[in-house]
């Protein structure tokens, strides 16, 4: 019974209430409070993480309180390595997002003063942000599947409102699309959850007790289906990805970061933890089709990204491609690949986050998301251009930047994975390798068309990043580069739990994981 | 012996139901409903004879009461509408759609 996680979840929601109850007109105060709270959460997370013992039990900082005895539901929380890093990821991203979207709510103006987004309630925005943080932490920390589901669904609502009332021109369409897709997936998952409860007949939802509870393979397949579809929609996997580009493109930059950086990770996280461990046989049975889907979305995302003229959409599509990698890694059934996938979740969070924010700043200056409207930014705003470049390179996982490690691990792991004996996964790895080249194409093309070349007329008015914006991007870039060269701390935390997972799936744990780290 | 009564009540009921479905004048529709209720009464009494206990007859009393109450309420409603619209046709009552 450690109070850590409950506290961690309580702090932001309390903050949210405070922010919401602030008197009218105290927008600045609201922002400051939010920032403070999120930083506090960050600190707390850091302290907690420091106390995490990689070689200890799988779940640490566990706590479980009776919530709905009649349903056998507990308020059960606890983190293993993967969950921990993801919580850390969200804890890191939130303050950055707060800072980044400092002015989003109070009417974003372009340099020449044309209003992009009208003035909206600041307090609402930031309290929603904090509520969202609570739920992000909760969803990763939940060890009770019912609780997980609750957060999984409830998370949609604040994000829905953030997109819907603070987004761009098409916002309500995007918001509804986002909500309905996820809701539908969620409801299917609900059936699966209930089914799990009923079939397992253990009258509990606690994850550890349910592992291996379902033996009947056909039942496994059904329930697996329920969970997987939900997660596949969440971590947009081709062909159910279509909501992401809209949502990401319409959402304010900050929300987009959380959406792509954290919310979607819930999908892959869920696959890794629930799909694999609860239904090993089904997972094995379905590996092939899923891998195919993954590969398709890797390639598809990349190719479509090349065709995009809208920066945010482009980034969204790159993410689809990257999620393809993560899913591939998860289902490759080799410790290297899985660890890589887990690592990728974090790194992708940083990389895409940085990219979105940079693009967001760019757009905020010009008021248009279209690549064609820019050009030669680096002359007028070198710092911005620099950050943009780094973020982009992280996106195409240049060696030395964090994404590279994870992507590399995923591919190696997949390549060497002997699950399904045949070379099927090998083939998958080879094909997905193509995506690396494509990634180079779309990123560099975007950077080149926006940053270099002749300076477009409106761009001349651009101011370079101000202190706040630098403070937003700097930590991310630092993390990207840092973990690029030294991912070990992350891996040390991740590996044990990933191994645990794989053992539950009865996959021989090779030691490649360690090999992957050394470069 | 009693089957004849049952058949009769069945017929009455069917006639009433048909009337409700195809007639257009609210009052006629309403009378058809009453006809159905009386068919029920007939059935009850017949069965009470057949089964050999008095329940059916007692029920018939209560049905009468309910039928009376329905008459009172129903006519009041229909007459109000009639006064408003100068028509008791169910088809004219068409403000509420979909």
């Amino acid at each position: 019974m450690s109070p850590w996680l409950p506290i961690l979840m309580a702090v932001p929601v309390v903050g949210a209430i405070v922010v919401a109850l602030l008197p009218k007109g105290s927008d600045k105060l609201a922002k400051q409070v939010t920032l403070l709270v999120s930083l506090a959460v960050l600190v707390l997370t850091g302290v907690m993480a420091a106390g995490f013992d990689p070689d200890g039990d799988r779940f640490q900082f566990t706590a479980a309180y009776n919530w709905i005895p009649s349903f056998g539901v507990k308020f059960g929380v606890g983190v293993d390595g993967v969950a921990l890093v993801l919580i850390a990821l969200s804890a890191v991203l939130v303050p950055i997002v707060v800072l980044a979207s400092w002015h989003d709510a109070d009417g974003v103006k372009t340099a020449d003063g044309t209003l992009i987004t009208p003035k909206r309630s600041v307090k609402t925005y930031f309290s929603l942000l904090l509520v969202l943080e609570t739920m992000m932490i909760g969803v990763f920390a939940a060890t009770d599947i019912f609780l997980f589901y609750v957060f999984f669904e409830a998370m949609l609502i604040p994000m829905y409102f953030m997109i819907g009332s603070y987004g761009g021109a098409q916002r309500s369409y995007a918001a509804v699309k986002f909500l309905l897709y996820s809701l539908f997936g969620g409801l299917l998952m609900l059936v699966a959850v209930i089914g799990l409860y009923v079939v397992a007949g253990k009258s509990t939802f606690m994850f550890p007790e349910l592992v291996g509870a379902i033996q009947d393979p056909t039942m496994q397949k059904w329930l697996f289906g329920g969970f997987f579809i939900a997660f596949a929609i969440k971590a947009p996997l081709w062909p159910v990805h279509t909501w992401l580009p809209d949502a990401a493109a319409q959402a304010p930059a900050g929300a987009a970061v959380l959406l792509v950086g954290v919310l979607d990770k819930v999908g892959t996280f869920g696959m890794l933890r629930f799909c694999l461990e609860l239904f090993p046989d089904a997972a094995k049975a379905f590996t092939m089709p899923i891998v195919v889907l993954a590969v398709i979305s890797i390639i598809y995302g990349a190719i479509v990204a090349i065709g995009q003229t809208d920066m945010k959409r482009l980034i969204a599509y790159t993410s689809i491609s990257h999620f393809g990698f993560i899913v591939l890694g998860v289902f490759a059934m080799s410790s290297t690949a899985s660890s890589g996938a887990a690592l990728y979740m974090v790194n992708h969070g940083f990389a895409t986050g940085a990219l979105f924010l940079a693009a967001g700043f760019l757009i905020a200056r010009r008021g248009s998301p279209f690549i064609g409207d820019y050009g030669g930014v680096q002359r007028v705003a070198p710092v911005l251009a620099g950050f943009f470049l780094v973020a982009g390179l992280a996106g195409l996982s240049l060696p030395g930047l964090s994404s590279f490690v994870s992507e590399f691990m995923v591919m190696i792991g997949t390549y060497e994975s002997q699950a399904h004996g045949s070379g099927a996964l090998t083939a998958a790895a080879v094909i997905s390798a193509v995506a690396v080249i494509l990634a180079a194409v779309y990123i560099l093309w975007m950077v080149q068309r926006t940053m270099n070349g002749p300076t477009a007329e409106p761009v001349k008015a651009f101011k370079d990043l101000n202190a706040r914006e630098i403070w937003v991007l700097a930590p991310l870039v630092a993390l990207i580069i840092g973990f690029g060269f030294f991912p070990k701390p992350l891996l040390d935390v991740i590996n044990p739990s990933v191994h645990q997972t794989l053992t539950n799936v009865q996959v021989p744990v090779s030691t490649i994981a360690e090999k992957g780290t050394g470069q | 012996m009693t089957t004849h009564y049952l058949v009769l009540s069945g017929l009455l009921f069917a006639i009433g139901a048909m009337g409700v479905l195809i007639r257009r004048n609210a009052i006629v529709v309403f009378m058809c409903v009453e006809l159905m209720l009386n068919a029920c009464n007939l059935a009850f009494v017949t069965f009470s004879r057949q089964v050999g206990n008095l329940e059916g007859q007692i029920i018939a009393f209560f049905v009468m009461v309910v039928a009376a109450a329905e008459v009172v309420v129903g006519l009041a409603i229909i007459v109000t509408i009639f006064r408003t619209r100068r028509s008791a046709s169910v088809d004219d009552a068409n403000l509420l759609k979909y």
Partner: protein
Amino acid sequence: MNPAIDAPTIEYGTLAPLLIVFGAAIIGVLVEAFAPRYLRKSIHVPLTLLSLAGAFALVLVQVLRGQVSTAPSAMGALAVDGPSLFLWGVILVLSFVCVLLINDEGHFVASAASVPGSADEEAAESVDNGSGHTEVYPLVLFAVGGMLLFPAAHDLLMMFVALEVMSLPLYLLCGLARRRRLLSQEASMKYFLLGAFSSAFFLYGTAMVYGFAGTVSLPGINQALSAGSGLDPLLMIGLAMLGVGLLFKIGAAPFQAWKPDVYQGAPTPITALMASGTLVAAVGAVLRVFWVGLGNLDWDWRPVIWVIAALTMIVGSVLAITQTEIKRMLAYSSIAHAGFLLIGVMATFGTAEQNAVSLKAILFYLAVYGVTTVGAFAVVTLIRDPGGEAGHLSRWAGLGKRAPVLAGTFAFFLLAFAGIPLTSGFMGKYAVFTAALDSGTQPGDPIGGWMAGLVVVGVIASAVAAFFYVRVIVLMFFSEPAADGPAIAVPSTGTVAVIAVSLLVTVGVGLYPESVLGIANDAASSLFIR
């Protein structure tokens, strides 16, 4: 000759809540008769509220002192068992809340008899102090009394009488709207004609069953079923007709046609009462009939209910999408919810434990759904146009900007309807679905597997339903307010209380369902008296 009639015994203590409500209703009539006009309302309001509260208190007393009777009361006419008491409590609370809404000025016409737009209407309105017909209060009390009787009825005759006692006042109340009187009268007429039609079916069904079983008491029927061959045509016809009558009341497809019209036409507080109280009572009655009366016949009725439940959910959610009128939309949503409840009904069979589980689920669902509904309609009463309530959805555009709190509350209710986690609605749905899947796993059940299918249908339906709830939210929050938006009426204390209470319950139960769930559990664990 007929045998000696010995004086019947009546458990006055057990029936006290009923007696109080009906007594108050009768006193209400006397008030109407003898109190001068200007005094009536100030007598009625406390009388009505107190009687409802008193009845609730008596229910509590029975529960707390553990005097839940295990034998039918009043010579086997009523069964005041755990579930009945729970339903009574729910109905009383809901009606209490609805009465708070009814108290508001300007809902009811000053003189229903006057022709709309005529001189005598104006004359009536001029003397009327906005409270309209004060007969409303006795009528509501009678209706509530009927609602209390309905789920507690232990034989079909009692059930029929209760059905009428419940419906007749409602028919009238539907026609008393102060604004849009033509709509209101039309709703009243449609409700009446269809309602009478369906109750005739119920009655004929009763006759048939009586002919088969020789009795109308539910347990008696059950015994007859277990004894005789279950496939007597008489019986089949009877059951079908009974079903029609009951399903009509809960508005299950294909008998749902009346719901949208009536809900739209009726004065909103009455709509709230119907959408909450009537539904609760009717579902309770359905449960009792199917579990107590036809328990030995579930192989025959469950497939039918399966189809009807699926149909109801689909019809409800699909048709709701096309609605442009807020009350009609809520009506269709309540149809869809009736469908979800039918899933629960479907699951009440087999072992007593299973029955308890499903019963618990349904009771819980009814409670939370009722409260949320009342809250939603309470909000609807506040958004006003010059011509009355602003029913058309387009008028709600941008409400989120003009009245954030109100719109937020309404949005929350909608989310609860949609069954988003952390709202009571989700917990209700979850409970029902669990019960359904649970029942599916019972050994030796040929159509157990179908339960899963039904649940999937339910899930898809609620996904569809979510769409139109969300659409309203989009309208309220993501679209710009119209220039001549509707006025937001300054809510009376009563209305505020109603909205606040329902919001609190919706949130509270959403966060900590055990509070209600526990009670429902206790109520359900002592099953229907059989």
